[in-house]
């Protein structure tokens, strides 16, 4: 039953991808197609990274409302990068090999999120509202610290890191595409190997332990994978607040299942359809000035509110 829906989604995605490549491609295709292909690859990468990180996070915290971005993971990445600019200076940062900067940032995000969220997650299911509040407070704290540091940095210096406070799908940081692709594929490999364990972890710590899993260890492994995926997507396009929530909620509606093999695939396909389709329509058809991320966050924000109200009333 789910297989047919997944195939249909795959077909829609393929169609959107082709349209994105060829629509309005006047002039030299030898130039246009590789240029567009690079952007398409980056969109797909970001889409899959965001949806996968969200599924992982919702499974280990056993809730369907919170996502890494709502908990402030992306904001934390931007803060870490800003601290790096502050300490080394934009020019100093540029002189370092970009891979090293990216690597160090990713490692820092993994460590910081283990430190900040590692202990919090244990009580997530019992106290959803506390988690929501903590996430909002963390996010606000990270963002205001970032803003504070930015004010003390010369704007020209800051421009080199190319991160803003919202996602810009039109200005993808393609220098990092190769390393991002490798990192994402590696991470997805680990997630895929974990898929059956995730099914068990979703039953809650007691049931999972009874079935021979170690929930604490699973949470930590998942947190590391989440941090890597978040740093990939944030480095490429910037923070995206509600995309993950939107696409994973849609996936749960379209393919209701307890199997992570299906949920991960379905969420990834929907995420790609939303990003590629949305970008195709806004760039090629409507020539929109408003960035796609604003539209996605607007709709995703409504989903968040609706889930929150439904969840607390229950």
């Amino acid at each position, binding site marked *: 039953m789910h297989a047919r829906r997944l195939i249909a989604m795959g077909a829609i995605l393929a169609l959107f991808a082709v349209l994105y490549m060829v629509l309005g491609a006047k002039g030299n295709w030898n130039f246009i197609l590789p240029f567009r292909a690079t952007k398409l690859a980056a969109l797909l990468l970001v889409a899959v990274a965001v949806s996968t990180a969200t599924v992982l996070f919702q499974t280990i915290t*056993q809730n369907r409302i919170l996502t890494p971005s709502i908990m402030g993971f992306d904001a934390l990445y931007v803060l870490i990068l800003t601290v790096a600019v502050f300490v080394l200076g934009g020019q100093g940062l540029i002189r370092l090999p970009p891979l090293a900067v990216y690597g160090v940032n990713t490692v820092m995000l993994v460590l910081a999120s283990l430190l900040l969220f590692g202990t919090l997650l244990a009580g997530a*299911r019992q106290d959803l509202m506390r988690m929501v509040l903590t996430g909002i407070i963390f996010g606000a704290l990270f963002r205001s610290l970032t803003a504070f540091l930015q004010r003390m940095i010369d704007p020209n210096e800051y421009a080199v890191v190319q991160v803003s406070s919202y996602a810009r799908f039109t200005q993808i940081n393609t220098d990092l595409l190769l390393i991002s692709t490798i990192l994402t594929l590696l991470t997805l490999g680990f997630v895929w190997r974990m*898929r*059956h*364990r995730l*099914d*068990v972890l*979703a*039953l*809650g*710590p*007691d*049931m999972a*332990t*009874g*079935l*021979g*899993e*170690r929930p604490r260890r699973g949470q930590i492994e998942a947190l590391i994978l989440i941090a890597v995926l978040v740093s990939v997507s944030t480095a490429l396009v910037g923070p995206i607040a509600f995309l993950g929530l939107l696409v994973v909620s849609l996936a749960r509606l379209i393919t*209701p*299942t*307890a199997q992570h093999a299906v949920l991960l695939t379905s969420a990834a396909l929907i995420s790609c359809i939303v990003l590629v389709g949305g970008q195709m329509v806004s760039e090629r058809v409507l020539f929109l000035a408003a960035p796609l991320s604003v539209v996605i966050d607007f709709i995703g924000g409504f989903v968040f509110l609706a889930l929150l109200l439904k969840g607390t009333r229950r």
Partner: protein
Amino acid sequence: MIRISDLSYHHGRTQVLDQVSLTIPKGGITALVGANGAGKSTLLSLIARLTPLQTGSIHVGDLDVSRCPSDMLARNLSILPQNTEVAPRLTVRELVSFGRYPYHKGQPTSEDHTKIDAALQDFDLTPLADRVLDTLSGGQKQRAYVAMTYAQDTDYILLDEPLNNLDIAASRSLMQTLRHLSQEKGRTIVVVMHDLNYACAYADHLVALSNGKIRAEGHPSQVVTNGFLSSVFSTDAHVHHVDQVPVILV
């Protein structure tokens, strides 16, 4: 045999278990009884390592619970925690299939499928196999959870208040299934229960806990007396006997 020695446990300042030493004999049904808050669930969680040990030691057969690998423990001992409630949208068959996870780790073999079908059959769940748990009654759900534990096919089975939500037919049928498992297959079954009449009718061994200490232990016909009811449960109900089985009229 489950050997528990010098087991103490506290939640913050509350002493939940106080120097408990206990041997649960191999084979047979052991009923664990005691007032609300006596520490029964805590004791089961410690045996199954759902809660880490603070002081004391627990051995399940040859396994030292504090040391043995998680998956090995799960192939020797299964537990149904109290008030189990799972979040995801599972069908009854999917839930019961999880019982086989410690063996197949995600890729069920034909033997696993046979055992899953048998568990569904034995708990009258075959007609409900493809229903989602959310759509079942409390008792039907409870049966599905017990069936999952049963499918785990372990020598030691711990059940925390499995009779909750079950009507009289389902309760008797569950206890008869447990008796069959213990007598025919030599399983060691520990059941937390509130209804002493079920304990007296089906258990081979009874352990009474109150305020974190063992108050009485032995065959139900010897343990359950008027004095026992007043000291462990602080009630003046009377014990009668039918065919030498103690019966409490309420």
